[in-house]
């Protein structure tokens, strides 16, 4: 290293370099935020469909092994924050006919009503009750909502490999209007297909639920994980949801997504 004093030109270029580095360092979170949002927007764009239907097989497992099998029929009209969905239990026999109507909104939490045939009444699920497990599964009522890109703020945390696939790791924090049981979530999105690979949901600083997607396949041009494994890390239990008879963009009527329709047994 030379002890020779730096010329004024050298001093200027060094100052420029420091300024540039400082500017980049300051701008990095903003860029990461922009990038993260763009990735989530693209992921949402690629999964948009006019409608969706599948039969879900749910296997609820506690720490000791398999406990119960359940089955539901899921139908959705619209996409993301502009959608309505009805989830109707087909099995086990004692909950057959129990149904949930979810009306998603782009800027806030969804509205949800549950119909119980034995009571012949629907009941609105209050926002503060959405952390409750949905009928003995490891999904909470909130987990059944369809997320919209505008409901969260994003930050790119880096890149990671999940099940052999390169993924972006993105932190999403609920916006002020979005009331959530979760403080934040970390979302892994596959770089090759923009499909969700994993979601970890936090309450304060602890991960409480982990949702893993696998068995990816294209269905009518939409990459979909057909096996979802939701783990409740506080209870040490998990629910595996397998999507069967999956279809997108089939004709559905708006009138089948009302409280009236929820009461219909078929």
């Amino acid at each position, binding site marked *: 290293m030379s002890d020779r004093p730096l010329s004024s030109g050298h001093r200027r270029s060094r100052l420029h370099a420091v300024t540039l580095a400082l500017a980049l360092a300051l701008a990095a979170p903003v860029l990461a935020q922009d990038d993260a949002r763009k990735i989530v927007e693209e992921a949402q764009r690629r999964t948009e469909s006019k409608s969706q239907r599948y039969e879900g097989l749910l296997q609820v497992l506690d720490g000791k092994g398999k406990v119960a099998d359940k089955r539901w029929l899921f139908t959705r009209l619209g996409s993301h924050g502009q959608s309505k969905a009805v989830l109707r239990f087909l099995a086990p026999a*004692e909950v057959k*006919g129990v149904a949930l109507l979810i009306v998603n909104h782009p800027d*806030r939490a969804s*509205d949800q009503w549950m119909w119980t045939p034995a009571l*012949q009444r629907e009941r609105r699920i*209050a*926002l503060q009750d959405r952390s409750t497990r949905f009928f003995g599964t490891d999904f909470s009522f909130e987990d059944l909502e369809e997320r919209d890109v505008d409901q969260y703020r994003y930050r790119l945390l880096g890149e990671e490999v999940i099940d052999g696939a390169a993924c972006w790791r993105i932190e999403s924090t609920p916006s002020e209007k979005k009331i959530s049981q979760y403080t934040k979530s970390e979302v892994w999105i596959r770089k090759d297909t923009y499909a969700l690979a994993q979601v970890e949901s936090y309450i304060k600083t602890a991960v409480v639920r982990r949702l893993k997607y696998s068995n990816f396949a294209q269905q009518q041009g939409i990459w979909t994980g057909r096996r979802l494994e939701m783990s409740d890390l506080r209870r040490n239990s998990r629910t595996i949801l397998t999507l069967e008879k999956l279809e997108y963009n089939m004709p559905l009527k708006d009138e089948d997504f009302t409280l009236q329709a929820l009461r219909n047994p*078929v």
Partner: protein
Amino acid sequence: MKSLLVLLLFAVPAGAQQFTYRGFAEVQATGYMQPAPQDDGRVWSAALFRVEPAYRPADWLTLSGSFDARVDSAEQVERVWRIDVQDRGLQRPAFSVRHAQATLRKGTLAVDLGKQFVRWGKTDILNPTDRFAPRDFLEVTDADFLAVIGARAQYERGGQSFDVVWVPTFTPSRVPLLEHRWAPLPPQASGSAGFVDLGAAFPQRSQYGARWNVVGPGFEASVSYFDGFNHLPQYTATPLSSRPLIALQRTYAPLRMAGADGAVPLRWFTVKGEAAALFSHSSEADDVVLYIIQLERQSGELSVVAGYAGEVVTANRSLFEFAPDRGLTRAFLGRVGYTIGPTSDVSFEAAVRQNLDGVWLKGQYSKAVGAHWRATLAGAVIGGDERDFIGQYNDNSHVLATLRYSF
């Protein structure tokens, strides 16, 4: 009604895609802690088979029904080979059409025709506005709902719905059998050797009602109106001069109701309220305002509902009536449920009159076994003063075991 039933039964084999059914077979045993003055039977058993088919032959039409077959040891169930549709008998029918209806839907309008359940109100423990919902009170603390025969039109658009109901045939609540332990004893009964049932005088004219419900982002509210009859009876008690017996006849007072209910979810709990002003132009029925306010919260595996039910008598005229709805007012009511795991849960319910003259406590544990079976063990403790609606059943503390196979 018969033609609807025939249509439903013949439609069954045709529709594999749009046909569904559910049902169960259940056996139940009840053990009472002590004999009652009018009934020393301590152990009752009962069995029930229920099947509920539904068929949707077209997008706009759904046919659904529910059919019961039952038997019991306490003779609360008829021993008659007939299929009952009207549900007006003193005893439960051995074979019955629990409900059978056709639902026609066109756009935002739905019309239900036939024997159907109509449930109004938002609170969970007591529903003062639920006027089209007679119940089977043979065992007062475990009362199932009865369907009514009529027509209902519902128009739903956006967050609003409008509901109009017309019921041409009266369905009364089924009251406890005289000589059985759940029978309410009129004051004239003290010292008498027994009762003679003179039957019921059923109202002849139609009942109707309307309800408007609004769902907003931070609230849900409705107003309702009913013009019909109280499904709970008044008793006219006449001592017989020839024998030490009391002759009882059931009558049903004309009733008009103006009601409202609402729910507002707050940060920590949901506040629900319901109130009904009941007016009767009968000279023997009270005018009352019934109301309930409750707080509700679910968190994790725990659900809690707690509230207060009140009553204001605006005109006091009644002689003797069987009124569980009023009997549960001026009381603190609560329910706590806890889901132990995917297959088991426990719950506790309580009703405590504010003057402590009547207390009812119930605990229940339930466990599912495999995909079809569920076993339930429950115990109820009833105490209090014999002049109180709840307290009068202080001999009826019991345990209840139920085994159900669902399909």
